[in-house]
């Protein structure tokens, strides 16, 4: 549905993106990760037809995003990263304007439903709205026409944790509906719950693309074991599991799959407590791609 092929753009200052290629299939959620300034927004500007590539192509549903921009935009819901609004309108006026430009029937139920879902009253003037409220207006504008493709640039910035959760639920629903979603973020944790795949951009280059399912397979668990004696802890250290950390009578072990062996090893000792947590997917991701040079 979304195709980038060798997309390259150099800004006069020397920054930009170099040879970025990936595809996002129909109904797939793609997390587009990278630190600020890595080129995420530049990539998205190409998909929205705001910029023309120096070389390579950005396509949505087989249409070139620059030369067929209006046709592409009919399919797309877009959430800009930088929230610049026309200040002298109310939120409701802006939504009506955008609905009119999309030729949506007046007073659509979907818009009202989204507003109530995000607890948004759009009637106030936009210039008096808080950053979070503006972000909600932008979210409604992006989702209100039930688009086939959603391009979301840093969608959760400015939202409180409750609204972030509602947003992720909405993304999940849209995905089940069959929407193709590209969402950028500088934080792995934001996208890992909903994304099928993640791509990592660094200094304008795509350094990794990975399935979240595969990362989950690689995901180990870290057991924190507190023993009664220091000797028990020492013995567990030699039990054959990778040791994450060791403090006097406490030891952290990394386990993948072989839980029976762990239980057997633990049964030989007296324990004060036992804790378990999954390793961060981000840690696994970064571990695999080291400094971002790829494998």
């Amino acid at each position: 549905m979304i195709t980038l092929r060798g997309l390259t753009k150099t800004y006069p200052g020397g920054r930009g993106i170099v040879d970025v290629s990936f595809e996002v299939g129909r109904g797939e959620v793609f997390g587009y990760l990278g630190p600020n300034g890595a080129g995420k927004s530049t990539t998205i500007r190409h998909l929205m037809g705001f910029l023309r590539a120096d070389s390579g192509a950005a396509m949505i549903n087989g249409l070139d995003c620059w030369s067929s921009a209006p046709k592409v935009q009919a399919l797309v819901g877009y959430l800009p990263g930088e929230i610049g609004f026309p200040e002298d309108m109310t939120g409701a006026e802006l939504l009506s304007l955008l609905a009119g430009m999309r030729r949506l029937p007046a007073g659509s139920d979907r818009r009202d439903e989204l507003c109530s879902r995000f607890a948004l009253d759009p009637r106030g003037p936009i210039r008096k709205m808080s950053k979070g409220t503006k972000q909600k207006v932008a979210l409604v504008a992006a989702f209100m026409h039930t688009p086939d493709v959603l391009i979301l640039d840093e969608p959760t910035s400015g939202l409180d944790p409750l609204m972030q959760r509602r947003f992720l639920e909405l993304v999940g629903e849209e995905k089940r509906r069959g929407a193709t979603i590209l969402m950028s973020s500088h934080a792995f944790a934001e996208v890992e719950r909903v994304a099928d795949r993640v791509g990592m951009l660094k200094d304008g280059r795509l350094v990794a693309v990975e399935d979240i399912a595969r990362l989950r397979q690689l995901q180990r668990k870290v057991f924190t074991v507190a023993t009664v004696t220091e000797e028990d802890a020492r013995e567990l250290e030699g039990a054959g599991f990778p040791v994450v950390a060791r403090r006097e009578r406490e030891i952290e072990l990394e386990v993948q799959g072989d839980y029976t062996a762990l239980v057997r090893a633990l049964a030989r000792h007296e324990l004060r407590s036992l804790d378990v947590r999954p390793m961060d997917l981000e840690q696994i991701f970064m571990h695999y791609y080291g400094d971002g040079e790829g494998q």
Partner: protein
Amino acid sequence: MSALFSSTLRQALRGVANYALGMVFYLWLFIWVYPSFAGSTTLNTLLQNLPPGLLRVLGYSLGGTSLSGFLAGEFYSLVYLLILAIYVLVTGTRLMAHLVDNGSMAYLLATPVSRRRIAAAQALVLLCGVVIIAGATTAGGLLGAHWFAAHEHLPAWSFVKLNLVGMLVFMVVASYAFLFSALAADERSAMGLSAVLTLAFYGLHVLGDLSTRLAWVAHLSLFNVFNAQSLLAGRGHVLVDAVALAGAALVLLGGAVSGFERRQLSL
């Protein structure tokens, strides 16, 4: 496009109404003070002693003794130019460069409406404002002359033609302001370019009037077409000028729209 046009027009109308009201208010003020001005012998003696070049700049070649001459000299040579220039420069810059600068253009461009139609809708709003202000000035002037200076003669048809040419001149100013607004890197440079060009035109116009040796430089000025004295006296090639001005406006707007279509935008 119609949704964008009507929404932007609705927003712009309050500003346009203010400019139109201000214009009519000033015009009425000038018409209202005219009788006391015409009756002042001191002022007339003073004017007779001024050098002819300076009088031309002030717009008194028709003589300060008729309402037409007074309005041409006092109102249409400065206040009228100033109010319309401020309207087109401020609004022209707001309608494009401001939206690109603050990023809100992204919302409009993210809809299936093409850039060409978006730019055309915004340009149309700007021109509608010029038409409304010029129309209000024409109607206000005719009514004001009737109400406040009934015994003075204001040649109605020439007054309409004067305002028609004025409107078309400012459609050209609006068009280059819009061109800069659609293509300049940011709002400030768009406004700067429009303002500098407009001031240059005005400066050339004044300079050409000031001295007969420099009369030729006035031909470089857009405002040269808008000679209120001779238009009110019924002179000048109104039709030719009108066609030329409308053509220039169309060319400039066409350039603005097609330039904006090709422009790279970091929104």
